[in-house]
């Protein structure tokens, strides 16, 4: 299982990388962690004519905190984010999901931006970006733009990135006070893609009612799915058992999973309801006690 030949360029700067991408378009792929791209290349499912290696770009390796909001650069590896105190502190949902992604050996190379560009709907991270209402910073040789997570994932392995764009960083907004989050998944073995995963975020107002909510699921369809109607049901509620159960049932009804060799679509849908209820229950409890995760 050897990859097909490709031309290789070690990027000397972000500008250099973007210039090459502008020149070669879809024939060229960015190589960051390579933990999704290289297996696909070894199977010859992907045969890019050129790889632009971003690994020399140290200045894309950062976690920046500003007023509780987090910016993570394109070359930042999962393991760095997983062990960063500022992530545990300011973005507990992200901290909670990371140990579920593959294994340490993969996390020592793989990057968050690479994962998101790959847009596998079974992957956990895109769902967390949706639930967190993150935004993606795309740059090309001719410009840049911010894309909200809700508009970033278009289809199976397809994002809103244009052929000449790179996802250079992501930003997760600061959590308001009295916010609780929770990520839960069910996978066949630790580190496997989830058969179903749920990312939940709830915030309380001064009177203890829900002021904001985010609920997203992975492996629920061709893209990570934000359960908007279910989240909407929670706003203004006391996040009691009854309303959480109703919201979970709503989420279950909103998903359209495809099933796979490990699970039937009905089972996935059933899991969506179960995990949504469990995740929302935990997130609500955390919001109340003030311990976000």
């Amino acid at each position, binding site marked *: 299982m050897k*990859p*097909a030949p490709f031309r290789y360029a070690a990027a000397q700067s972000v500008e250099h990388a973007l210039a090459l991408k502008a020149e070669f378009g879809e024939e060229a792929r960015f190589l960051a962690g390579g933990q999704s791209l290289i297996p696909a290349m070894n199977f010859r499912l992907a045969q890019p004519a050129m790889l632009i290696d971003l690994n020399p770009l140290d200045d894309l390796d950062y976690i920046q905190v500003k007023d509780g909001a987090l910016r993570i650069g394109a070359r930042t590896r999962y393991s760095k984010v997983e062990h960063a105190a500022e992530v545990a502190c300011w973005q507990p949902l992200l901290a909670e999901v990371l140990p579920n992604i593959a294994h340490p050996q993969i996390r020592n190379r793989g990057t968050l931006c690479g994962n998101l560009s790959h847009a596998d709907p079974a992957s956990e991270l895109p769902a967390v970006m949706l639930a967190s209402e993150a935004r993606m910073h795309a740059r090309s040789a001719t410009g840049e733009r911010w894309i909200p997570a809700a508009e970033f994932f278009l289809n199976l392995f397809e994002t809103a990135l244009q052929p000449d764009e790179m996802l250079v960083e992501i930003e997760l907004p600061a959590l308001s006070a009295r916010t609780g989050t929770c990520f839960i998944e069910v996978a066949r*073995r*630790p580190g*496997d893609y989830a058969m179903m995963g749920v990312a939940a975020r709830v915030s309380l107002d001064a009177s203890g009612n829900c002021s904001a909510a985010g609920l997203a699921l992975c492996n629920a369809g061709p893209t990570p799915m934000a359960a908007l109607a279910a989240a909407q049901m929670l706003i203004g509620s006391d996040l009691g058992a009854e309303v959480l159960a109703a919201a979970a049932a709503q989420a279950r009804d909103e998903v359209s999973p495809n099933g796979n060799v*490990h699970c039937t679509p009905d*089972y996935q849908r059933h899991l969506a309801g179960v995990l949504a209820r469990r995740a929302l229950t935990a997130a609500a409890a955390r919001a109340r006690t003030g311990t976000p995760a």
Partner: protein
Amino acid sequence: MSTRYFGQPVKRNEDARLLTGSALFVDDVELGGMLHAAFLRSPYAHAKIVSIDLQAAKARPGVIAVYTAEDLGDYWQPGPLLVPPPPVPGIVFNLRTQVPLAKGVVRHVGEPVVLVIADSRYIAEDAVGDIYIDWEALPVAAELEAAARPDAPRVHPDIPGNVAAHAHQKRGDYARAAKDAHLTIKRRFTYDHGCSQPMETRGVVAQWDNKADKLTIWDTTQAPVAIRNGMAAMLGLSERQVRVIAPFIGGGFGPKIMMFYPEEVLIPWVAMQLNTPVKWIEDRAEHFVATTHERGQIHDAEMAIDKDGRILGVKDVFLHDTGAYDPYGLTVPINSQCTLLGPYVVPNYDSVFTAVFTNKTLVTPYRGAGRQHGVFVMERLLDIAAREIGITPAEIRRRNFIAPDAFPYNHGIIYQDFTELTYDSGNYEPILDQVLATIGYEKFLAEEQPRLRAEGKCVGIAVVCYVEGTGIGPYEGAKVQVQASGKVSVVTGIGTQGQGHFTSFAQIVADACGVDVTNVEVVTGDTDAFYWGAGTFASRGAVVAGNAIGQAAGLVRQKILATAAEHFECAETDLVIENGRVSLAGVPDHSITLGELAGMANPMRGAVAPGTEPGLEATSYFGPPMGATASGAHAMIVEVDPETMMVEIKRYAVAHDCGVVINPLIVEGQVQGGVAQGIGNAFFEDLVYNEEGQLLNASLADYLLPTSMDVPRMELTHTVTPSPLNPMGIKGVGEAGAIPVGPLFAQALEDALQLPQRGVELLDIPLSPSKLWELARGA
């Protein structure tokens, strides 16, 4: 003779090399000018090859040669029958064997069609991508039952209903027994035993030295001697011109004893054609389609019992998926048929199977070799029977055991070694008692389970029993020699799959020859060193090779004593052999090293007496008339999350009897490794095919091998009923752990979720959380 090492948990001699990355595996072989091979394999389960365009492939720089079936000329021929069908009266057997490269038609996904030889594997794969084949898809016989229908698409054009074999064995009169029965239980069971997935895939390196007129083949085979003999015959060489080396093998588990795989047959031929060394290493994607599987059976089985749950008889009609070809004969279904009887008295038995060709990868033995399927049927029938008459699964088994004084116990049907299935020895009730005690069976049922259930937890317990036929012939041999260095070498034809032969064999020799176990050098798997023997499979290495080694070492011991007695001018009974020296008893200063003694036995002048041999060396062979029967029981407690159906194994116990034990550490390792594969088989591993015979999960990302978090810590105990069939009393243990885990899961999960009370039974393996949920929904 002291037994300083035999029975001890001696640390392994081979570990230092393996731990430091200095052990040779086949892909580690590097030869000057070596070329690399890659295959174009059929993407279709069944298709005609209309035309093949090799132009672009041949033109690619770095490509040295490209071969199709036509290019092989007279060398192209279907492979040999490896295991003849057993002498079951009235047996039907249709032999169809694999070919080196497909000619005109392909019969399973992965069947090799074109061989590319290039400067590197990378380039060879590029060239495979250059090849254009015009295919005509043919109807596919994929699913087993569908393939068995008379009007099914034919895998082989002249065989309607895809009948590879039909075999009927019976003992007594089941129909009459069923008439008098208190109850008969009838169910359909399906059991799929997946595939082996050793961490090391297959590989072959071949080097033809046309000056020495010698062919050397490195091969990940479990049967180097057979490969040597077969390849010599095929290539028109004498056996002495061919050397097969099976170096360290990264796990075999059975499919590496399938012989004369296309790649094995082709690579040496190409090396001779090109007069250049050639290497082929199977990648994991190939392994899923090119290396044999064991897969599935469908059983329509029936058990007649009396009011106390005693078995009056069993009747079983089953289909066996044998894949596209059947070179390995009927070992797997015969094992299913025989091992179903288990440790129980089954006065009347009527078992008939049809082996069915399908357009899928070949089926040959994989750890357990068909025993799993039979054991699943029997254990599940017993569980259902127990429930019907209101006793526990443990109790019904106890009531049906063969009594300890009934051995040797002849079941009267034919086994895989062509003898009548006879259990040599055994004592089953103590094994059951041990495992029940370890897991705390009674207390769990009476106290813990009710308490946990009241808390809303879904917990279940299960116990299953089985026997395992081990240590079959035909024979193995060994040559033991004291060298001038004082180290003792032992050479045998049997190879290694990682089960510690370099140590367990050394322990036997060390005791006999009075040396430190680290001073015994074991050579296996090199046909230049020893070229008699069958191979490592069927849990026979320790029994058959071990006893041959014991005999040879015993003969060497006699020579040591005789030579030393002559040297010291004393009686042999006055001598002590210890720590590599022979001395007069009570006079330790009066001693000679074994190395010096070996030198004396190999004189430069004088004469070797007529009827004697030089040196301190002996060769001996051991061929047991039939196999030795090991047995065991497994017990497990599980907790199931009733919403997600995720399963946690809380405790796992094994009680095992493999006769006299050479190295308890190695035995533990074999049982634990077997159980891990059993857990994979029961709950994680599932070969998922579509109707076109395409394997949908042909990667380790989607064919799920259990990890360290899926396999629990196990509590092992053992009993010993020595085998009367060999001087050391040993029985095999290689496959034991893997055999009963399927029915164990079914029983435990039924108990945890109280499924039978809800009208649901678990009659199919493998299971999974999704399958459990689908079965239980609405119940």
